[in-house]
């Protein structure tokens, strides 16, 4: 059991690519930590550096109270699950799971016994004599997990472990991982590019972009108060509406329309300042007639999402999106007024892209937590 402290970690590859730039990170003991970001953002490099498969250019890594920066991978007491699982095709399931124990010089009998116990715990009974090629993707993934568990590490490192599974299996495996973590309470670092996955499994997460961490927080914080425009546009099933606006007379001027400032943000902005109003498509409403504080727009396309409908709109402020209930789709081509739910709206400085104000101050209340979990099932589709 150990927490992880990363200080000023920089990784420059021989070809000059700066994969990590002065990354600082604290991962609490026993937490399930997700590293989220688009491909090429450095999340996998950070994970591989934690594992010791890459040597950092600068900076230090501590696991527990040990500085492991210069230790080889095998001495760090970590276990890694790879995207392709890296199961050895010439060994049966038991030998695969027992491989870390073989390295630890445990005898063949006891280690196969331990492998069978670990495998049974992960639902692999009766498969101990099979080869990896004879297993389904989900089973292979559990063998890789069992192998990591069998090595009794202080830290689990997962590199996109679910990305090779199909959508339905991914949901199951996600729940399985979460349950495994609550059983073992081993510190887990989980790399993914899927924001829905990160929101679903992690208790804390970091959003990365081009080698730097853009926000660290709980999934609820990151979802409800994205710290900057990058996180705002990256998190969410449907991209957040980011509407250019100016502060005029204590109101937001959007094209010809005027929208009130979100509550608690009046002090954060100056008169005339260019800002970006952030509103998730789920947190807006459409009105058929003119309303005060509405943004006039026209319906271009509607897409069925199952229980809801995604409406694409055109407005003076550019394209907008709204999610409405399945029986409330406005007719194509009609004029509607988009009303932002100001209690959930976010305000960003246009220049820096940083969050300047949000109606929701501080840690979100219980009510918003319930709301966020309610939106998650759609996230996986």
């Amino acid at each position, binding site marked *: 059991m150990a927490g992880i402290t990363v200080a000023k970690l920089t990784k420059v590859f021989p070809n000059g690519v700066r994969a990590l730039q002065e990354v600082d990170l604290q991962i609490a003991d026993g937490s399930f930590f997700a590293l989220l970001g688009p491909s090429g953002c450095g999340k996998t490099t950070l994970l591989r550096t934690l594992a*010791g*498969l890459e040597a950092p250019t600068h900076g230090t890594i501590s696991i527990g109270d040990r500085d492991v920066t210069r230790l080889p991978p095998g001495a*760090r007491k970590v*276990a890694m699950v790879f995207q*392709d699982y*890296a199961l*050895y095709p010439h060994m049966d399931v038991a030998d695969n799971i027992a491989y870390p124990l073989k*390295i630890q010089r445990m005898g063949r009998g006891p280690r196969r016994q331990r492998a069978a116990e670990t495998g049974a715990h992960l639902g692999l009974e009766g498969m101990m004599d099979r080869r990896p090629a004879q297993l389904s993707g989900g089973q292979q993934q559990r063998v890789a997990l069992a192998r990591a568990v069998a090595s009794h590490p202080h830290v689990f490192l997962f590199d996109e472990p679910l990305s090779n599974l199909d959508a339905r299996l991914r949901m199951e495996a996600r729940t399985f991982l979460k349950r495994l973590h609550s059983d073992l309470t081993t510190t887990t670092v989980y790399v993914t590019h899927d924001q829905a996955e990160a929101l679903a499994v992690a208790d804390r997460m970091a959003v990365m972009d081009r080698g730097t961490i853009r926000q660290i927080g709980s999934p609820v914080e990151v979802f409800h108060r994205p710290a900057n425009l990058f996180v705002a546009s990256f998190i969410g099933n449907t991209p957040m509406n980011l509407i250019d606006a100016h502060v005029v007379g204590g109101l937001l001027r959007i094209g010809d329309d005027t929208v009130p400032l979100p509550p608690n943000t009046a002090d954060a902005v100056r008169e005339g300042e260019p800002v970006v109003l952030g509103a998730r498509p789920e947190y807006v409403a459409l009105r058929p007639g003119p309303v005060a504080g509405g943004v006039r727009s026209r319906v271009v396309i509607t897409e069925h999402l199952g229980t809801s409908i995604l409406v694409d709109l055109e407005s003076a402020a550019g394209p907008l999106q709204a999610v409405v209930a399945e029986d409330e789709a406005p007719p194509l081509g009609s004029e509607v007024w988009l009303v932002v739910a100001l209690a959930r709206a976010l305000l960003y400085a246009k220049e820096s892209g940083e969050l300047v104000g949000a109606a929701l101050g501080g840690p979100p209340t219980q009510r918003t937590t319930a709301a966020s979990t309610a939106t998650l099932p759609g996230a996986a589709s």
Partner: protein
Amino acid sequence: MAATGATSAVDTAAEDRRWLVRALVSRIVLYGFLALTAAFFALPMAWLVLAPFEAHPTLVAGLTDPTLQNFKAMFDNPSVRGSLLNSILLALGTMAVVVASAALAAYALSRARVPGRDVILYILLLFSSVVTGSAAMVPIFLLAYDLHIINTLTGVALVLAGGLLPAAIFILKDFMDSTPASYEESARVFGASPFQILRHIVLPLVRPGLAVIAVWTIVTVWGSFLTPFILLQDPSQQPAAVEIYSFYSAGGTANLRLISTFGLLYTIPVVIMYLVVQNRYGFRFYGGLKR
């Protein structure tokens, strides 16, 4: 309309017939040619299989007076038995040196980032044909003499291995390049040493490659003549390929009884090996492999 339709139908029928005749004739010519070619190569084979069982073999393939006397006479000849044993020792010894060294070298070359690695490999490959070629025989002889490995099977095995290694490394490196890096990385995270990774993971995965090299080495050494002929003076050290050379009378006439019998025996191991490997790994000496 009807008239032209009928004419064209007749035309088509005639054309079809001409086409059939042409196809038939070209088939007959092709098969005739193939039969002749096959016979040309099959006759020596027939001689090789039949002559050892003939009491007085001539250069004509046939079985007029079948006997097993030839085999008895051959096995009574101590130098024949000795030469076969020498061949086996030489082939297995060279094989061991080549497989062990090639596995280590190929692994290192496959994983280490050496600048100009591919150039080094190609140069090695180029020189390999020189090492065991006749051009280098004099320096090799002198080198072996100075190292006191002349007139020993060890010396011959080392020289032959030197000639085969570059190609073996080249082939094996290809196999090792194709094993996913994540296999080794996961083993490294579990604390495996490079040697453990090689033994537990890489070697089992490239087993078909090792088999290719082992068989290819044995077959090559089994048939190699020049290197052992030059490096071994003592007749008791000679391998089978060199021994055949001595089955001539002083006057230069060939002892067909011995040559044919010995020739058959000399061929059998290679054929058996081909069949075994073909069965186990399903590869041909040309073409691809299935893993």
